C-alpha cells in the first residue's frame, strides 16, 4: 500500500519550545493556533524579532520509502512576518548555523531526498517579525513537503 498523507507526520524537536535537538514525540497539530510558534508580543512587534523553531518531517509508513522529498514554503505568512527555512541535522541545536532560504515553490524547494520508513528530517524554520509590524490575528504560514511513493 502506498504512502498516504497521513503517513507523513510533523514533530517538534526535543528542546523546550521546539527550538532544537532531536525529534520529540510531540506531533504538531495542523492548522491550530500556536501549534509551533508563540504569539508575537507587542514588544517584539514594536522592536522587531526573530524566532527559530526546529521541527522534524517523518515518514511514518511501515515499509515504504518516501522518495525524492522536497520541502518548501507553500504559503508565506499572511501578516507582516515571513518564514525562511533551512535543513537541519537530527540533533543540532544552533539555529543560526544553517543558511536560510525562502523557497516558495517546489522548484526552488529544499531537497530532502529519500526518507526511509520511520526516518525523519530536521527542518529549521525562521520567523522574522519586522519592527513596527501591524497586528494580525491568526497569522498563518503553510509549509509543504512532497515526495514520491510506490
Amino acid at each position: 500500500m502506498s504512502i498516504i498523507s497521513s503517513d507523513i507526520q510533523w514533530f517538534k524537536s526535543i528542546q523546550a519550545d521546539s527550538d532544537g535537538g532531536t525529534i520529540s514525540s510531540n506531533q504538531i497539530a495542523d492548522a491550530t493556533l500556536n501549534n509551533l510558534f508563540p504569539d508575537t508580543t507587542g514588544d517584539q512587534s514594536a522592536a522587531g524579532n526573530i524566532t527559530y523553531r526546529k521541527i522534524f518531517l517523518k515518514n511514518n509508513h511501515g515499509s515504504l520509502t518516501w522518495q525524492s522529498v522536497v520541502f518548501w514554503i507553500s504559503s508565506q505568512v499572511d501578516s507582516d512576518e515571513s518564514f525562511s527555512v533551512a535543513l537541519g541535522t537530527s540533533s543540532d541545536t544552533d539555529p543560526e548555523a544553517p543558511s536560510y532560504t525562502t523557497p516558495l515553490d517546489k522548484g526552488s524547494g529544499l531537497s530532502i531526498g529519500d526518507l526511509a520508513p520511520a526516518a525523519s528530517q530536521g527542518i529549521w524554520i525562521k520567523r522574522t517579525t519586522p519592527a513596527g509590524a501591524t497586528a494580525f490575528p491568526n497569522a498563518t504560514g503553510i509549509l509543504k513537503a512532497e515526495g514520491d511513493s510506490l
Partner: protein
Amino acid sequence: MSTVNSTLTLRWYLFVLANKTLELIWDLYVKASKTLTLIWNVSKIVKKTLVLIWDVDILASKTLALMWDVTVLASNTLTLIWTLIGRVEKTLTLPWNLIGRIYLTLSLKWNVSILVNKTLTLIWTVRVLASKMLDLIWNVRILVSKTLTLMWSLIGRVSRTLSLIWNIDRLVKKTIPQKPTVASIERTPRIPTVERIDKRGLR
C-alpha cells in the same frame, strides 16, 4: 508511483503594543516638560532682563533726579541772576523815571506855553474881531444918525408943509363963516332932565 504531500499550517497571533497612546502621552509629557523648561528658562531670562531694565530704569531715574536737581540749581541761579537784573533794572529805572518826569514836566511846560500862545492868539483874534465889530457898530450908528437926520429933515419939511396947510386952512376958515354943526351943538352944556335926577337919587 504516486506523489504524496503533506502540509503543515502554522498559526499564531501578532500583537502590537496597546500603550502607544501612553507613549505618545509620555512623549507629549516629555515635550511639554521640555517646553515648560524652555519657557521657565525664557522666563528667567525675561526676569533677569526685567531686573536689568529695572536697574537701568532706577539708574535713569536717579540720573533724571540728578539732572532735575541740576536744573533746579540752574533755575535758582537764573532766578537769582534775574532778581539781580531786576534790582539793577529798578535801580536804573529810578533815574530813568526821573528823566521821564523831567521830560514830562518840560513837555507840560511846552504844551502850556503853546496853550498860552494859542490863548493869546485867540484873545488877539477876539480883540481884532471886537474892533471890527465896534467899527461896524460905529458905521451903523453913523448910518442911523444920518438916517435920523434925514428923517428929521423930512419931518421938518412935512411939519412945515402941514403948518402951511394949517395956516391956509385957518385963513380959509376966517375968510368964510361956517354954520354950527350938530356936533358943535352936542358939545354945548345941556340942562339936567328929570330922568337924570331920578337916576342919581336911586344911586
